[in-house]
């Protein structure tokens, strides 16, 4: 977005309150209010000195566009980022914004190949989904079937217009404004202090932070152990794989966060996270480590019982199902008894496809399905 376009964006339906909350979030303080005219806001920077902007309270001034330009010029100088980004943040006071910036050398003229572009959007979705799952329960790996709340969040979040400057995909995550009663945040029974959408975005920021620091540490020490504790911060195999996918054939990535002015920024969260192209082998190894050392929860298994092994007592046996588990072709074993064991025998004898859910864990070269449940017959044998 050029400066001229940015000005007309803000000028159209000018909302001084939105700009004011933007300024407040970015460390500005209102010093003076000239009623019906303008407000004077300042921001102190120890190194660069005092910044000041005049915020017009209405767009009816004859020199309104010029004053808006002064304001945006000043914000651009203060924040050292393109005015286009500032304007987008200003226009969405009730959304957190996650920006994924692909390093410029791969996006010639600010464009991507159609194939690459489609993949980038898919990977951004995977990245946000991994954070949404982690915001519910941190795990090393998430199965293909995701919690309903995480899927519902994907429908709430929006993809913004792509922004110029390398290639930038922005995700807007709507969040309610933070309202306070006096000096205290509202404390009511059942009041969730942090809305889920904010928790997702904060988790993503923290997870990316833990990932980039973890990669540095792994590269320096050769030990992957640091990533075990990173899981609590939201790092998962799925998150690492989304980053790997976004880095494509070796491009650098930058993730940045803009917090909804109406809610303010969470404490202690970094706003920019960078991954150089050489992070990739480490991320691949972390993802492999997570997948091999964890159980997948709520995995769906489809298939036919291929093998039955008696285990002492009647109607108890080890059952091997051949088919798909979590969408991958696999053979999976589990122990069943009683009616479920009888169902397994029917499947074995009549080649019935059955489905169930359980926790998948790798044991040696095989996969065990723990706590197998919710059995049903998917397809009766046609013979």
């Amino acid at each position, binding site marked *: 977005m050029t400066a001229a376009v940015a*000005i007309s964006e803000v000028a159209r339906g000018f909302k001084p309150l939105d700009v004011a909350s933007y300024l407040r979030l970015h460390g500005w303080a209102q010093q003076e209010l000239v009623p019906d005219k303008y407000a004077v806001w300042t921001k*102190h920077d120890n190194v660069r000195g005092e910044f000041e902007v005049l915020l017009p309270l209405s767009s009816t001034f004859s*020199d309104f566009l*010029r004053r808006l*330009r002064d304001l945006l010029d000043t914000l651009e100088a203060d924040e050292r980022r393109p005015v286009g980004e500032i304007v987008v943040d200003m226009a969405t006071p009730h959304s957190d914004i996650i920006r994924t910036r692909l390093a410029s050398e791969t996006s010639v003229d600010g464009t991507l190949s159609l194939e690459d572009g489609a993949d980038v959007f898919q990977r951004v979705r995977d990245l946000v989904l991994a954070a949404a799952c982690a915001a519910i329960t941190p795990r090393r790996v998430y199965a293909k079937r995701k919690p309903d709340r995480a899927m519902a969040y994907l429908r709430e979040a929006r993809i913004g217009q792509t922004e110029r400057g390398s290639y930038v995909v922005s995700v807007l995550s709507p969040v309610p404004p933070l309202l306070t009663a006096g000096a205290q945040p509202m404390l009511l029974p059942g009041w969730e202090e942090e809305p889920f959408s904010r928790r997702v975005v904060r988790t993503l920021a923290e997870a990316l932070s833990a990932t980039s620091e973890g990669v540095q540490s792994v590269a320096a020490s050769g030990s992957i152990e640091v990533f075990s504790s990173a899981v609590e911060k939201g790092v998962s195999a799925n998150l690492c794989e989304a980053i790997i996918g976004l880095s494509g054939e070796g491009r650098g990535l930058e993730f940045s966060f803009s917090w909804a002015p109406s809610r303010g920024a969470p404490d202690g969260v970094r706003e920019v996270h960078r991954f150089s192209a050489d992070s990739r082998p480490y991320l691949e190894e972390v993802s492999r480590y997570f997948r091999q050392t964890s159980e997948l929860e709520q995995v769906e298994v489809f298939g036919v019982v291929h093998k039955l092994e008696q285990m002492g007592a009647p109607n108890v046996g080890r059952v091997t199902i051949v088919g798909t588990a979590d969408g991958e072709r696999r053979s999976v074993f589990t122990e069943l008894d009683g009616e479920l064991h009888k169902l397994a025998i029917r499947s074995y004898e009549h080649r019935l496809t059955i489905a169930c859910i359980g926790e998948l864990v790798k044991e040696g070269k095989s996969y065990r399905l723990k706590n197998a449940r919710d059995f049903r017959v998917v397809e009766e044998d046609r013979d």
Partner: protein
Amino acid sequence: MDLNQQKAQFSIAYAHAVATVAGLKVFRCDVDDESVDITLGQSGGGGTIRSPRLDIQLKCTERNVLRDDGIHFPLKRKNYDDLRDPQLMVPRILVVLLVPAKLAAWLSEIPERQLCMHRSAWWMSLNGADERPDVDTPTVVLPRANVFNVDSLKEIMQSLGDRGQL
């Protein structure tokens, strides 16, 4: 560069010189269709602008417009209306620079001693002036006492800082 461009550039240089010595920064803006050439202000963080601020419309002429009571200068209707507009956030003044007829005389030099800009500029605020609908190019009179120099500019800024009128 044609003569008009030279006049525009020279008037900016003149105002820039006066503003600099008065301790102010000059900002130029590419939104230029509203009769403002430069904005003066205090220097803020990262090279930005701070209050008090002043917008200036610059004019430059080699014609003999100096009378006993001041500079008689005809303005285009749009400039006149923009300058007298009471709906402004930042005050605006008109500055008219008189230059010698010959380009070579705009600057004079004594080597190693001085470089002088000729000849002088005057200022006025047209805030709230009458519409004068019957004239296409209203002539305004910049009072002879209103010389635009370092001292007068400092006074203008002082008065704006105290939220006074010009």
